[in-house]
């Protein structure tokens, strides 16, 4: 055991550093050159479709897997060769991991607290996660949501500097999910750095300061949720049912237009604020009334679909209807403050 983990100057050293990480299984690259850095006190999201290499990436951070090549550092320590020191500062919630069926909630909390030199008090933690009524229940008798909450409690019981939570709200009902998000925000407020793996957009958008979108083993984009949305081809969508047919030429001439669709007399256009203003001007000029006019911002879903080239099925939060966005927005004057990551 190493003693006190090496601590960098506040803010000077990222608490997690992943550099050009590669890992193959049977010759098939699962993680193919992933790099990112997580700053102290941040909630950092790893987002991506199933099989993108998210879990393998965080398993290398947790020391569960040995990278084929590349560098992983947690508070400056190597998770493989300095396992015990890293495990002492890193709380982990694994996807689909269970406990002994006949172990009670109380026993599990006491057991895991005993693994760490300076554990958190487990009773307030159990209270916060709504586990107090179930302390004497055996793990095998818990519901899926209760198991998930216990798993989160065990990730926190060692009073870690960093927690890695893999699919943390999967299996939780919407109420428990929101409670869990609040808990994660509280944890961060307490100075803990949070790395979450998710494929759930609303969760990423709500919680994360920054997100690495991983697709096919590579970082497709790394940005704030707002930054990712701005990158989306059609960042703003306007739709309406015109009282009279609009001239197709006028529509196609709209500035910054990304896509256009007609369906059942309804027109859906995606582009930027500039497009929206031009549509309103066009409507006024031609004296066409727009029924059921809706303007919506693109969501992280849209950005995600653009970045990963996915066709759909990205979750329940989509508020805009995708129109055939065949081309990316070009020539927009959108400020490019985003951080590009070599892929």
């Amino acid at each position, binding site marked *: 055991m190493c003693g006190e983990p090496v601590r960098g100057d506040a803010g000077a050293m990222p608490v997690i550093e992943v550099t050009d990480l590669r890992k193959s299984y049977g010759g098939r690259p699962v993680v193919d050159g992933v790099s990112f850095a997580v700053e102290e006190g941040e909630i950092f999201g790893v987002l991506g479709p199933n099989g993108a290499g998210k879990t393998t990436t965080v398993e290398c951070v947790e020391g569960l897997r040995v990278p084929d090549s590349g560098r992983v550092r947690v508070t400056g320590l190597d998770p493989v060769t300095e396992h*015990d020191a890293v495990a002492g500062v890193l709380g982990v919630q*694994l996807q689909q*991991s*269970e406990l*002994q069926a*006949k172990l009670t909630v109380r026993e599990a909390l006491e057991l*895991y607290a005993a693994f760490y030199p300076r554990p958190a008090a487990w009773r307030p933690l159990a209270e916060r996660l709504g586990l107090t009524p179930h302390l004497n229940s055996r793990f095998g008798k818990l519901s899926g949501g209760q198991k998930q909450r216990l798993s989160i409690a065990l990730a926190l019981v060692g009073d870690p500097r960093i927690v890695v939570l893999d699919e943390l709200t999967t299996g939780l009902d919407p109420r428990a999910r929101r409670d869990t998000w609040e808990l994660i925000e509280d944890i961060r407020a307490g100075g803990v750095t949070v790395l979450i793996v998710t494929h759930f957009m609303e969760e990423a958008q709500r919680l994360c300061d920054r997100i690495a979108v991983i697709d096919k083993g590579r970082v497709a984009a790394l940005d704030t949720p707002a930054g990712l949305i701005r990158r989306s081809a059609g960042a703003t969508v306007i739709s309406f049912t015109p009282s009279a047919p609009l001239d197709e030429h006028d529509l196609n001439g709209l500035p910054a237009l990304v896509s256009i669709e007609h369906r059942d007399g309804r027109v859906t256009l995606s582009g930027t604020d500039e497009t929206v203003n031009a549509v309103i001007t066009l409507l006024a000029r031609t004296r066409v009334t727009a029924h059921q006019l809706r303007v919506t911002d693109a969501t992280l879903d849209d950005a995600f679909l653009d970045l990963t080239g996915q066709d759909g099925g990205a979750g329940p939060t989509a508020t805009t209807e995708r129109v055939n966005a065949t081309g990316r927005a070009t020539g927009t004057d959108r400020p490019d403050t985003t951080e590009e990551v070599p892929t």
Partner: protein
Amino acid sequence: MTSPAPRTAVLNAAVLRTEVRLFRREPGGVFWVLLFPTLLLAILGSIPSFREADPSFGGLRPVDAYVPVAVLLGLIVGGVQGMPQTLTAYREHGILRRMATTPVRATALLGAQMLVYGGAALLSALLSLAVGRTAFGVPLPRQPFGYLLALLLAVAAALALGALLSALSRTAKIAGAVGSAALFPAMFCAGVWLPVQAMPDLLAGIVGWTPFGAAAEALNQAAAGDWPGGIHLAVLAAWTVLLTAAAVRWFRWE
């Protein structure tokens, strides 16, 4: 071999306490490892002819010959049926993996399992010796140190076999099936159907090369007051080393 080889923390008091507690919550394990061997001895000992000296047992009473068999039975059931299923289930359900992310590591769980089943097997042996002595007048081993040495080696061989069975089984269900398949030959060699003293010479010779056959021979010699034969102890030790090496080679943490 994707997970890093764990190095330290084979023993952890909190993990051991938890595993002892969990073992006691499994009525099946408690019965078959702790009570069944002694119960079998008591049933056999209740048959009047088993309490009469028998020339085919070298002048011993059958009940005398069955005490070492009962002593071995607990460690065979625990090592071949109990531990591999538990360990394989722990791997299958990600319990080993979860523990591997803590400073304590998954080795602590393996170590605790070995201590629990090894300890239960020794308790079971003690119970058999005590019941044999008090209920049926079977003398305690006349060479207690030789007896203890043979018994500890037999426990080590059984645990190594259990670890290997778990290493070779992907699921707890497979471990159960493989364990059952190994259980009957192991029980046969230990002399459950026919104690080794009563086996024909050729059969006894062959059985003597198996771990539990060698253990039975060594226990019989120590019970009679001799130091167990070097060849039996060597056979047991060689099996333990071989099985351990194979288990280490193939064991997976996930």
